[in-house]
């Protein structure tokens, strides 16, 4: 064999298709398309405008969290308090406005401040003690869950905050976090040549504010990850922390910033939930933390850090949203969702590990 044939092999290895297939989010994209097609063909309601509105909304709040959690996982850490945070931030706003008559915007800012503070505490604890973030944020998770339940009960005597609509300036905040865009283009139908798709426009396609936030957050996170110094540092602290420190990457700042980002995303989702439904339960978000991680992993994030994608996590959330609603439309037992999530997670982990080994192995 001569060097010439060697070179040929090398060129063949980097074809466009291979490059595309190497993207971490490709698996989630393919799965999303397959799942959409499946429910669109097997159920009547799934691909209708009103049906799509429902699963898009479900995917959006999960998606915002999944994207933030994906950044954190690429940075090599977990945040189990992320779910409880969505309830905590909503409850802070609810209690401050309903019980103490605080101005709604002031309450929203206080809530954001508290979220960022808790995120910073998570980060500093992890970095200063060297403990796994899994344990540290498990602690924060239970603390938040306890505060959410006991604190709300102690301050309001109830387990949920209701009647947010009576709070002054509620409408202002609702416009930002809880409004919806209704589109009903009666003329819009698809002519695919071999078949015509006539959509049922008797009920409109409702795009909630949360969907726009979701798209915005995903775009921003992708930009940061791939086009900024910060993004470079996120990959490096997750991929090789000691090496990053040796080379001059601000490891501490990057990681604490990531924990604060997740907490900030928890705040955003808290606001989206409270201003969409005008109520907040004290157990909101509990149990969701693993869903975020599953979405991030399905989207291509490695459990060990250093690799992953924000768009992938958004696709992961889309899959979750579609399946959880599709199962309802198909008339199956809702609990199948859990089994499905488990299968998806295992499949994704195996795929990701294979990708990582390929990327890391010396040739």
């Amino acid at each position, binding site marked *: 064999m001569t060097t010439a044939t060697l070179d040929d092999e*090398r*060129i063949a290895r*980097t074809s466009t298709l291979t490059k595309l297939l190497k993207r971490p989010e490709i698996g989630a994209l393919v799965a999303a398309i397959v799942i959409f097609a499946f429910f669109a063909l097997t159920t009547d309601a799934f691909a209708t405008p009103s049906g799509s509105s429902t699963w898009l909304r479900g995917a959006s709040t999960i998606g915002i969290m999944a994207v933030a959690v994906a950044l954190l996982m690429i940075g090599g850490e977990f945040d189990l308090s992320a779910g409880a945070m969505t309830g905590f931030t909503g409850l802070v706003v609810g209690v401050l406005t309903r019980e103490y008559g605080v101005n709604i915007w002031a309450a929203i800012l206080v809530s954001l401040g508290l979220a960022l503070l808790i995120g910073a505490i998570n980060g500093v604890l992890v970095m200063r003690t060297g403990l796994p973030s899994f344990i540290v944020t498990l602690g924060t998770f239970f603390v938040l869950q306890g505060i959410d339940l006991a604190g709300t009960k102690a301050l309001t005597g109830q387990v949920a905050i209701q009647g947010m609509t009576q709070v002054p300036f509620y409408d202002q905040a609702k416009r930002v976090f809880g409004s919806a865009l209704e589109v009903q283009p009666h003329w819009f139908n698809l002519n695919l040549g071999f078949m015509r798709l006539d959509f049922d426009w008797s009920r409109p396609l409702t795009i909630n504010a949360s969907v726009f936030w979701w798209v915005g957050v995903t775009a921003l996170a992708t*930009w940061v990850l791939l*086009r*900024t*110094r910060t*993004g*470079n*540092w996120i*990959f*490096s602290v997750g*991929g*090789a922390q*000691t*090496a*990053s420190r*040796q*080379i*001059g*990457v601000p490891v501490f700042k990057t990681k604490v910033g990531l924990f604060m980002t997740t907490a900030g995303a928890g705040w955003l989702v808290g606001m989206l939930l409270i201003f969409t439904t005008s109520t907040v339960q004290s157990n909101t978000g509990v149990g969701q933390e693993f869903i975020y991680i599953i979405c991030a992993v399905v989207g291509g994030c490695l459990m060990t850090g*250093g*690799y992953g994608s924000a768009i992938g996590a958004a696709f992961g959330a889309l899959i979750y949203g579609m399946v959880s609603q599709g199962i309802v439309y198909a008339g199956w037992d809702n609990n199948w969702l859990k089994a499905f999530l488990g299968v998806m997670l295992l499949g994704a982990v195996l795929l990701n590990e294979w990708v*990582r080994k390929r*990327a*890391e*192995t*010396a*040739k």
Partner: protein
Amino acid sequence: MSNDNETVAASPVTNVYAPPPRGTAIIEVRDIGKRYGNIIALSDVSTSVRAGEVTCVLGDNGAGKSTFIKILAGAHEHTDGQLLIDGEDHTLSSPRAALELGIATVYQDLAVVPLMPVWRNFFLGSEITKGAGPLKKLDIDFMKRTTKSELSAMGIDLRDVEQPIGTLSGGERQCVAIARAVYFGARVLILDEPTAALGVKQSGVVLKYIAKARERGLGVVFITHNPHHAYPVGDRFMLLRRGKSMGDFPKADLTLEDLTAMMAGGEELESLAHELAETMGADSAIAQELKADVT
């Protein structure tokens, strides 16, 4: 000493180091030592690192090599003697301080992130950006081009700087780490056992880059326990044994045989040769070779 002011060609960046005349001492250590409490890890070590020369630090495991480089790299402060950089007395308190004086260390683990592309690794921590404010973004095009040209200046031809650095061979990774240190203004390169984990062929590649770095006018400190790797590229040899210097020799005063014998400790090697001759037969290749080395 004819290559005065030899400039490093083909790079638009201003931080490229214009080396002083070949042979100018950049680092001089005089009777340097390090004590941890009452344990003496290193004592009475003297040598120099000169522009355009390779200073080899040789010694067996535990001889004090890593203590010595930690002093030069700023990881540990010395407790005895003098460390002169550009003729001035210094105590390096951190790796950052050493870097600011142009002393870069390439550790055995290379400080690379295996899953990240070569070009991202090359600029990690010193990324080039363009634009301002919230739109400030990585100048990906420039970084990719520079990575490719810097690596090819070191003689590494990568087919794709986008591939994860983990897919490169150990020798290639070593070379990327060296090229990176050179690009970011190192004038002294400390290489910690760069050939220790490599095969024969890969070691050859790394030695070639050490020679390249020397050609570019850098001072190189090459730590190794292999005299066969040190001798071809070295200009000056400092031998360590049990925390003490066994001397600092210019190449002219030393043959490879001297070096090998001193490294192993003459008598020890001789007794090993005898032992091997007994167990494996006096005619076995390895016994013959050892005998040849000793005499």
